[in-house]
C-alpha cells in the first residue's frame, strides 16, 4: 500500500501543494523539449528528403558549436565567425553529398545509417583535432543573446525564467515557422517535398537529387548550428553534447520520422515527461532515471501507434 501511495498519490499531492515548483518543472521540461525538438528537426529534414537516418546529427550540433567558438578564439569577431561557420556547414553538406551519399545511392537503409556512423566518428576526430577535446564556453554574449533570469511571482512563490531559455523558445519557433514556409511556399521547398514522396518520380520530372540533398544537409547543418548555440549557452560546448543526439531518438519515434510538427510535439512531450518523472518519481527509484525514461515513454506510445504520433501510416504490401 505504501508503495502505491508513493507512486500514485504522493507526487500529485506535491504538485498540488507547491504549484510554483510544478510550473518551474514544466517550464524546464518545455525548454529541454524544445532543444530535443531542434535536434529531432535536423533528423526529420534529412530523413524526409533522402531517407537517411542521420545518426551524425548530434555530432553536427557539436561540430557547428565548436567551429563557432574555435573561430572566435582565434580572434575572429563573433558575427564573422557565425558567417564562417555557416560556410563550413555548407562545405560539410557538400562534402557529405559528394563523398558519401552519391556513391551509396540505392543502397539499403541500414548501409546509409552505418555510413552516418562513420561520419560521426570522422567528425569527432576532426573536431577534436582542430579545436581540442576540452569543453569550451559558448560566446553567447558576443552574439547578443540575453543573460540572467526573470523572477515571476505567481502561485504563492517565485518561478525563475532564464532569459536564454525564453530566447531559445522564440528562436526555435521562428525557425520552425521559417522552415514550414520554406517547405510549403518556395520552389525548392516543393522540390524537397517531391523528393520526399518519391525519389524516382522526382527525378523523372527533372529535379536534381544531388542539389536537393546538399540543400537538405545544409538546412540540417543550420538547424544544428542554432541548436549548438542554444545548448552551448545553457551548458558548455563539449563532446558530451553528443549524448543529446541519443535523446532526440525517442522524440523522433514519438513524433514520427517524417513529420516536422511531430518532432516539435514529441520533443515537448518527452522534455516535460522527463523532467516531471525525474522530479516527482525520481526519488522513488533512485536518481538518474532521466537517462531511460524518455525511451520508455516513447516505447509505450509506439505500442499503440507504431508509426509515431504524426507519422505516415505504415502500409505493407506483398
Amino acid at each position, binding site marked *: 500500500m505504501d508503495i502505491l501511495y508513493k507512486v500514485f498519490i504522493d507526487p500529485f499531492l506535491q504538485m498540488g501543494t507547491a504549484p510554483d515548483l510544478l510550473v518551474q518543472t514544466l517550464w524546464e521540461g518545455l525548454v529541454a523539449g524544445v532543444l530535443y525538438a531542434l535536434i529531432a528537426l535536423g533528423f526529420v529534414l534529412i530523413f524526409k528528403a533522402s531517407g537517411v537516418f542521420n545518426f551524425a546529427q548530434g555530432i553536427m550540433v557539436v561540430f557547428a558549436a565548436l567551429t563557432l567558438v574555435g573561430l572566435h578564439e582565434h580572434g575572429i569577431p563573433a558575427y564573422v565567425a557565425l558567417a564562417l561557420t555557416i560556410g563550413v556547414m555548407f562545405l560539410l553538406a557538400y562534402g557529405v553529398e559528394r563523398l558519401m551519399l552519391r556513391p551509396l545511392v540505392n543502397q539499403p537503409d*541500414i548501409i546509409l545509417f552505418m555510413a552516418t556512423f562513420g561520419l560521426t566518428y570522422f567528425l569527432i576526430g576532426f573536431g577534436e583535432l582542430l579545436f581540442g577535446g576540452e569543453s569550451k564556453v559558448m560566446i553567447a554574449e558576443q552574439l547578443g543573446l540575453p543573460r540572467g533570469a526573470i523572477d515571476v511571482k505567481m502561485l504563492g512563490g517565485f518561478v525563475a525564467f532564464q532569459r536564454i531559455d525564453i530566447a531559445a523558445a522564440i528562436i526555435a519557433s521562428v525557425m520552425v515557422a521559417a522552415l514550414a514556409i520554406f517547405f510549403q511556399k518556395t520552389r525548392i521547398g516543393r522540390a524537397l517535398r517531391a523528393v520526399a514522396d518519391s525519389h524516382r518520380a522526382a527525378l523523372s520530372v527533372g529535379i536534381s537529387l544531388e542539389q536537393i540533398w546538399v540543400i537538405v544537409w545544409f538546412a540540417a547543418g543550420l538547424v544544428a548550428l542554432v541548436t549548438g548555440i542554444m545548448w552551448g549557452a545553457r551548458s558548455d560546448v563539449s563532446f558530451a553534447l553528443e549524448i543529446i543526439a541519443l535523446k532526440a531518438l525517442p522524440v523522433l519515434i514519438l513524433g514520427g520520422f517524417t513529420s516536422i510538427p511531430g518532432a516539435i510535439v514529441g520533443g515537448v512531450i518527452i522534455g516535460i515527461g522527463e523532467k516531471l518523472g525525474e522530479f516527482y518519481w525520481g526519488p522513488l527509484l533512485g536518481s538518474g532515471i532521466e537517462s531511460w525514461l524518455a525511451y520508455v515513454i516513447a516505447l509505450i506510445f509506439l505500442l499503440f501507434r507504431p508509426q509515431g504520433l504524426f507519422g505516415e501510416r505504415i502500409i505493407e504490401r506483398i
Partner: protein
Amino acid sequence: MLYREVGQFKANYSADQAVFPILQDRMGLAVILFVAVVLIPYFGNGFFIQAVMIPFLIFSLAAIGLNLLTGYTGLLSLGTGAFMGVGAYACYKLTTYFPGVNILIWVIASGFFSAAVGVVFGLPSLRIKGFYLAVATLAAQFFLSWCFIRIPWFYNYNTSGAIEVPTRTLFGTPVTGATATNTTRYFVVLAIVVVMTVIAANIVHGRIGRMWMAVRDMDLAAELIGIRLLQTKLLAFAVSSFYCGVAGALLVFLWYGGAEPAVFDVNLSFFILFMVIIGGLGSLVGSFFGAALIFVLPIVLRYLPPKFGMPIQAATVEHIQFMTIGALIVLFLIVEPAGLARLWQIAKQKLRVWPFPY
C-alpha cells in the same frame, strides 16, 4: 587450381547439406584450427594472446550473436552492449552465490539470463520495425545500464561500483582472476567460441535459420507461409542475447578481470554493430572478419606511425584514429556494402574458375 570441387560427389543428402560440403573448405578450416590451437599458443607471446587474440575471439562471438538477430532475422538492435552486461553481471552473481560450481557452467548459464532479458525487450519487435525497433532496443540499453549503476545488489554493494573477478579453477588450474595464465584463458575462450560457432552454423543452416531468413526478407510473406512471427522473432532475440551474454561474461571474466558499468554502455553496442555491418550481414565468417578489422585496426593505427618514424602526440593519434575509422567505415561501405564476407565469396568464386574465368 587448388580450390576446385570437381569430382567430389555427394552420395546422400546429409553429405550434400553439410555445413562445409567442399573438401578444400574443410581442409582450410583444419589449418585454421591447427594455427589457433597449436601455433598461436606455442609461438605467440603473452601480449599478442592477451591483447589481440582473446578480445578478438570474444568480440567475434558477440558479433555472431548480433548477426543472428540483425543479419539473419533483420531486426536491428542497438542493445547488444546491455545484453553483454546482463551476461557478465549474471555470471558474477552466480559465482558469488555458488563459488564451488565450475565457472564454465556459470558462463554458459549466464547466457540464459541474458536470453530471458532479451526476450522481454524483444516483445515490441512484433509491432515495431526497422529504425523504430532500433530505438526501442536503445531503451533496453539505457535501462539496463542504469540498473548496473543504480542497483548495488548487482555489484555486491562494493564501494567502487565495479565488479572484480574472483579466482576460479578448472581441474585445478586457475582460469579466471589474476593468477590465470594468458594461455589457459585463451584455450578456454577458444573452446567456447569454436563450439558456439559450430552450433550457430548448424542453427542458421537448419529450419530455424530458414525461418529467420524468411522473416528478414519479408515478415508479412513469412507469416502467410505459416511461420509464426512472434515465436520466430522472440527465438532470434533469445539466441542472439544468449550469445551476447556469454560473450559479455567472457569479456569480464577472461579478458578484463573486472568491469565498471561504463564498459557496457551504448558505445559497445555500436562497436559490435560496426563489426557486423563491416563483416557482412547474414554471414558467420563475416562476423570474424568484422571483429578482426574493427578491433585490430585501432591497434595497428596506434603502433604503425611510430614505426615509420612519425613522432605524433598521443592525443593527436587518438583523434586521427577516430577520423581514420570513420573514413574507413564509409570507404568500406562504398566499396562493398555487403561487407567483407562478400569479398571473401568473390575471391573464392574467382579461385574456383581460375585460370579460365568466364
